[in-house]
C-alpha cells in the first residue's frame, strides 16, 4: 500500500505492507532514527511521535493508519536550524542521562506546552506519566519542561 505522510514538514511516500509498524516506517523506511523502539508493548513510550500534534505511541500503530497525516519526530523540533526551547531546556537542565527516552520526553513536553503554556509540576508529571525513564532522571526532566515553559514565555514577551 502506498503511504504518504508529511513528516517534519516534508512530504514522504513509500509502498509498505499494512502490518509495518509506524516506528519501523519512520526509522527503517524514512531513515529517521531519532524515534526509538523500547518495550514494543505500548508500555514505555520511547517510540512517541506527534501525529497531527498529538502524542501517540508509534509502536502501537500501523504506518498505513498515518496515511495523509502529519508527523513530528525529534528531528523536526529544531526551528530555523536552531534548537527549540524544549531542546535548549533539556540541555541546560541536564534533562537526560542515557538519552534513550529523551526524544519522546521532549515531544510530550512540546505538546503539553502547546496546550498549557504554564503547567504546574503536577501537570508536567501527569503529562509524562506514559513515558518511562530507566535512568530515573525524572526530577531533571520535569525541571527541563518547566525551564522550556519559562524560555518560551520570555521569548513571547521579548
Amino acid at each position, binding site marked *: 500500500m502506498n503511504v504518504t505522510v508529511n513528516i517534519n514538514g516534508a512530504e514522504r511516500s513509500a509502498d509498505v505492507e499494512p502490518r509495518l509498524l509506524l516506528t519501523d516506517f519512520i526509522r527503517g523506511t524514512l531513515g529517521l532514527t531519532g524515534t526509538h523502539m523500547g518495550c*514494543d508493548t505500548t508500555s514505555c513510550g520511547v517510540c512517541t511521535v506527534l501525529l497531527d500534534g498529538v502524542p501517540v*505511541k508509534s509502536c502501537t500503530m500501523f504506518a498505513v493508519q498515518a496515511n495523509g497525516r502529519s508527523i513530528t519526530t525529534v528531528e523536526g523540533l529544531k526551528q530555523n536550524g536552531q534548537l527549540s526551547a524544549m531542546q535548549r531546556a533539556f540541555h541546560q537542565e541536564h534533562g537526560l542521562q542515557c538519552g534513550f527516552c529523551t526524544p519522546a520526553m521532549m515531544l510530550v513536553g512540546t505538546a503539553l506546552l502547546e496546550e498549557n503554556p504554564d503547567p504546574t509540576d503536577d501537570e508536567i508529571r*501527569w503529562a509524562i506519566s506514559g513515558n518511562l525513564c530507566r535512568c530515573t532522571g525524572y526530577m531533571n526532566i520535569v525541571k527541563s519542561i518547566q525551564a522550556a515553559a519559562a524560555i518560551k514565555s520570555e521569548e513571547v514577551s521579548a
Partner: protein
Amino acid sequence: MYPSKFDYLAPTSLDEALGVLAEKGPAIKVLAGGQSLVPMMKLRLANPPALLDINRLPDLDFIEDSNGHLRIGALVRHNDVVKSDAVKRANHTVAAAAPWVSDPIVRNLGTVCGSLAHHDPEGDWASVMLATGADVVLKSTQGERVLPITDFCVDMFQTLCRPDELVTEVRVKKHSARGGGDYQKLERKVGDYATVGVATSLELDEHGRIASAGIALTSVYAHNLKVTEAEILLKGKQPSPELFQEAGAIAGAACDPADDHRGSAAYKRHVVGVFTERGLTRSLEIAQGGQS
C-alpha cells in the same frame, strides 16, 4: 514483534464500512484506537485476516448531551472524555474514570466504544456503564439495534455485537442535579491494568433518600461485575456511613479475585470493600451538592 499478514481497508463512509462488515463478518476486525487490538495482534493473540479502519469515517467523534443521555461516538478518544465539559456536567462516574484509563498517550488514541466492544474484564469503561446505566448503539446493513449495557456485556471478551455490526455510540444515562458518581482505581503504575476498580453512582430523591444506586467492579471477577445485591440494599434507604459499609461488605463478598502479581485475593477483596464505601461516600457528596 509483528502481526501476521492482513488486508487493510479504510472506508470513508459508514455505508461502505457496514457493507464490508456484512460481506466479511468474522473475517474482519474493526480498528478504532487500536490500543488493545494492535498489541494483541503483535503478540499474535489475535490474527484477523483483515482490518477495517474506521478512523476515516465522518461524524463519529461526537460527545453530545441529548434526551437525558450523554452520547459518546465511536471515535471519541479517552482523552476527549477527560477534557469534555459536557461530560463533567452530565455524568460524574464517567468524568471520574476517564483520567484513570491507561496512560496519557494511550488515551490520545484509545476509544470508549472500542474498549466496550473489546470487553476486557480489566477494562474500566464497562464497569462505569454498568454502574450508571447505558445503551450501546449497534449498526449494520440490517439496521440499528440499541442494547442495554447489561445485555450487551455477555462475558469476558464477549458481547452481543454481531460480526456484521459496528458499535457506533454509547448513550450513558445522565446524572440529575441530585445525582453523583465516582470511580476508584488502584493500579501498580500508570498504564497498568487495575488491581481493583470500583464504579459507583447514586441518585437521591427529594427527601435525600437513595432513589437508585449503581456499583460495578473491575479486575476482580471473570468479567466486569455489577453488584446488584448491594444496589438493591441501598435503594430507598437514607444514606449513612453504616449503610455504605454494608454495601462495601456485599461487594467484597460478591467478587472473586485471583491471587496474582498485583496482590492476593484477600487483599483485593478488602480493597473492593474500602473502595465501594469511599466511592459511595464521594458520590453522595456530589449528589448533595457539596462538591462537584
